[in-house]
């Protein structure tokens, strides 16, 4: 058999998928596995039955292994967690290389993983195992190092992830990496090192080298080059500016910054050449460089792409040393199998998926593309011949990698970058030059300061040229498109179609002939069915109002029947380098729903937790009009930038007050607050309050309206305030005098009350007093922190409210 590991890997992967999506009994799976293995052994031989039994055994082993991995031991740290943070003391060993960074408030933060071994709340130390993600704001007497055994005091909690359908969930992402708890050590919290645990010497050395490299890079390079070189050389992304990486994301070249096989290949090649120059025998060279590569894994942060690349290198070298021709795809399968045995959940890590799919695509498709396009036929005797061959091959490598990965990229990042075919041709060679230059810089640093400075300057210039070129690529027309996540069927059809390229045109079986063209026709028919079904079902008389989970803030999307879309607030944000709800939640949610433009953005008031994310939305979507209260907003940086973007993009800017309304078929949106008065000042009381009416249904979106605003609306509108769904004002926090608030809610009389609030917020919202008042009329209360995104679906006849997370 040519590729044994590959044929074992596939059923193993299927086993992991089944284990992940069902509750198959692990013990049962193990039993079936053993039975199948026995059968395979009994009927051993080159027959179909024996092989099938073997694959079945691997499949059930995959289920058993994955399920077993997922069950945490009884004393795992996650069992000590509750729904809100707890103050505890924690003992453990620093499990990776701590990274220091500066917060927006100019405090130093150190981030690392801790391998816990004991926890204490008030009384005694108890055994507790597991990885904890630590954010440390306390001052340290000496820097923390990998391998140190320390005692920490802080607040421990479950990782918080925003829960919106189809979007990135940070808590899930940490779980894939086996981290189920986060610890925050505040200023003044205790940090004490006890004796040094016996650290892994390989890791220790690697981290020391990394520290040296980091200091060298910090000394000689300036921003933004420093962040970029650190990310490519030692895998440290803390200093990487978002504005830079966003260009790389748009041009589909971000893989260059995540250390990939490129860097590994170049570094290995460099050291091999050096050793060859000093006449080290070949097999010794290969082994020495393999050891250096293992060290480099830790220097560069041990991300899946580099682990994968190094494993492949080692497997190929091992194969060569045993004098066998090792098949590339088989080595790749071995690397994947090894990584999945170490952590089956890695299968769901986007980085893992992209690395392996891109390399597999290159291995499978480059020979095919080369033969189809006649590149193979280029004669390589002359210099021009060689050059053309390598350039042409480079293009086919780029095409192959793109063809295999664009559906996965579209799924995770909602983007398709046709320009990447061109951009990679520039970025990849530039990166080779930059990596070589950076190593020269490090070597020069050992020689003289002047030499290092010269090398650093050269690398900086080349980087600057690269950034400019990349920026042009990103700004080119049709360079990239925002797309919705492709559905499973479309992805499957696509991969089936390109797989057909690899299959021979005709395969003869015993009774019938498979002709490739028939399969292509079948795929085209199914694709047509899907597309035309979508065309025919566009007509829609359902209105949807989605209250997104943006943490501490508000954002609601109103999708009107007839296709218009209105966004009300967009959560917090505004600083590129920090979390931005517009960028992280609202924009991806809209792209996933196929929405590329907004007929209106309504801003309830200009506080940062409502306005922050709007700037990203204004810059990345076509907006018909911006509606706000027109209130006077002094001294707010975010407000000034908001006005500037509106002016620059020439968007209609309209002030709305009570009595204004937007009509649509069978419904309207009515503004109920603020009043039509001259010169109002921005604040909670002057929040834009909207009533959305669709036939018999109505919803009230209250912004942060409180106190006198609620009283005024109750007096003026009385029972007209009635709504089926209310978005509770001010994130369920304090909204004023108890009687006024009670009157207001009594008049609204909503069946569903929705509170948009974060899991842990400094206001301790929702406030118990407000909750008591709301609950007195017994509505169904949903909060975004517990239920994730909440959607109201309204048809002409009825309505329903669904939450993303069902209450556990």
């Amino acid at each position: 058999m040519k590729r044994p590991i590959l044929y074992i890997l596939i059923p193993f992967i299927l086993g992991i998928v089944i284990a992940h999506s069902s509750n198959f009994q692990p013990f049962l799976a193990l039993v079936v596995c053993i039975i199948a293995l026995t059968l395979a052994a009994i009927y051993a031989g080159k027959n179909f039955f024996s092989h099938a039994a073997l694959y079945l055994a691997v499949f059930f082993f995959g289920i058993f292994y994955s399920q077993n991995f997922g069950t945490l031991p009884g004393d795992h740290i996650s069992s000590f967690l509750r729904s809100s943070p707890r103050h505890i003391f924690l003992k453990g060993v620093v499990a990776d290389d701590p990274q220091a960074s500066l917060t927006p408030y100019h405090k130093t933060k150190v981030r690392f993983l801790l391998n816990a071994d004991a926890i204490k709340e008030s009384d005694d130390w108890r055994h507790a195992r597991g990885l904890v993600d630590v954010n440390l704001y306390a001052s340290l007497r000496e820097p923390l190092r990998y391998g140190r055994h320390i005692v920490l005091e802080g607040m421990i909690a479950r990782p918080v992830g925003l829960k919106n359908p189809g979007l990135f969930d940070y808590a899930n992402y940490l779980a894939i990496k086996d981290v189920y708890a986060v610890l925050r050590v505040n200023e003044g919290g205790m940090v004490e090192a006890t004796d040094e645990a016996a650290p892994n010497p390989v890791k220790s050395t690697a981290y020391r080298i990394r520290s040296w490299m980091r200091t060298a890079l910090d000394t000689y390079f300036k921003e933004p080059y420093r962040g970029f070189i650190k990310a490519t050389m030692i895998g440290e992304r803390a200093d990487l500016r978002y504005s830079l990486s966003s260009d790389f994301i748009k041009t589909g070249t971000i893989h260059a910054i995540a250390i990939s096989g490129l860097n590994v290949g170049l570094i290995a090649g460099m050291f091999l050449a050096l050793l060859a120059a000093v006449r080290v025998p070949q097999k010794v060279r290969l082994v020495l460089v393999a050891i250096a590569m293992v060290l480099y894994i830790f220097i560069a942060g041990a991300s899946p792409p580099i682990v994968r690349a190094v494993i492949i290198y080692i497997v190929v070298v091992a194969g060569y040393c045993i004098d066998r021709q090792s098949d590339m795809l088989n080595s790749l399968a071995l690397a994947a199998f090894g990584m999945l045995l170490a952590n089956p959940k890695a299968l769901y890590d986007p980085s893992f998926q992209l690395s392996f799919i891109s390399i597999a695509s290159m291995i499978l498709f480059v020979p095919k593309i080369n033969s189809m396009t006649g590149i193979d036929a280029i004669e390589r005797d002359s210099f021009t011949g060689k050059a053309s061959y390598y350039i042409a091959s480079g293009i086919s490598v780029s095409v192959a990698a793109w063809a295999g990965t664009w559906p996965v990229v579209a799924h995770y990042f909602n983007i398709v970058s046709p320009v990447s075919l061109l951009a990679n041709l520039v970025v990849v060679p530039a990166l080779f030059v930059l990596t070589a230059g950076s190593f020269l810089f490090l070597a020069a640093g050992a020689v003289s300061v002047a030499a290092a400075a010269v090398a650093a300057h050269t690398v900086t210039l080349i980087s600057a040229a690269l950034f400019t070129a990349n920026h042009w690529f990103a700004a080119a027309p049709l360079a990239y498109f925002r797309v919705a996540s492709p559905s499973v069927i479309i992805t499957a059809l696509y991969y089936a179609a390109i797989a057909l390229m690899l299959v021979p045109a005709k395969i003869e079986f015993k009774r019938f002939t498979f002709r490739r063209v028939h399969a292509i026709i079948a795929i085209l028919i199914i694709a047509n069915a899907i597309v035309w079904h979508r065309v025919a079902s566009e007509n829609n008389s359902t209105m949807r109002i989605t209250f997104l989970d943006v943490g501490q803030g508000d954002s609601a999307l109103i999708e009107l029947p007839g296709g218009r879309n209105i966004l009300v607030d967009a959560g917090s944000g505004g600083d590129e380098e920090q979390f931005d709800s517009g960028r992280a939640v609202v924009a991806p949610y809209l792209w996933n729903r196929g929405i590329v433009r907004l007929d209106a953005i309504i801003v309830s008031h200009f506080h940062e937790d409502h306005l922050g994310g709007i700037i990203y939305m204004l810059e990345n979507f076509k907006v018909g009009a911006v509606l706000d209260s027109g209130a006077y907003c002094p001294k707010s940086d975010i407000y000034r930038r908001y006005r500037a973007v509106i002016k620059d993009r020439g968007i209609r800017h309209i002030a709305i007050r009570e009595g204004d309304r937007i009509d649509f078929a069978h419904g309207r949106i009515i503004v109920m607050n603020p009043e039509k008065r001259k010169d109002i000042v921005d604040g909670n009381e002057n929040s834009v309050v909207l009533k959305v009416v669709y036939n018999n249904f109505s919803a009230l979106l209250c912004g942060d309206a409180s106190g006198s605003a609620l009283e005024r609306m109750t007096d003026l509108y009385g029972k007209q305030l009635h709504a089926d769904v209310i978005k509770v004002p001010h994130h369920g926090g304090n909204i004023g005098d108890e009687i006024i608030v009670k009157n207001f809610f009594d008049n609204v009389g909503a069946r569903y009350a929705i509170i948009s609030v974060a899991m842990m917020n400094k206001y301790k919202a929702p406030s118990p007093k407000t909750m008591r008042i709301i609950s007195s009329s017994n509505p169904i209360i949903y909060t975004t922190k517990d239920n994730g995104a909440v959607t109201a679906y309204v048809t002409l006849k009825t309505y329903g409210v669904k939450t993303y997370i069902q209450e556990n």
Partner: protein
Amino acid sequence: MINLERSEKVIIGILIAALVLGCGVILYRKYAPIGDLRIESSTVNKHTPRDITKKVRMININEASVETLMGLKGIGKVLAGRIVEYRTKNGSFITVDDLKKVPGIGASLFEKIKDSIILE
């Protein structure tokens, strides 16, 4: 891969053309410009709960029967009936201006009666 019979080439050609056409329709719907959103303004009738004397003479267009509505100057049986019909079909009047939407009640008639009507 290029060795296809004529019939197969035709079939594949038609299927690809249909696919491109379908995608074109979807993209057109996604990106084609639709008109600007229209925002209408109206006045909200202000009343204070304490002004009971005025309330006696005011007619609540959201709750009044046909007979009561006929008490408004210029509103006869037909128009009163239409007001009730509009209410049943479209729900309560949110603002007083909505009355203008009832067929037969024009701007001038509205001006005559607007000070006598309330919503609550």
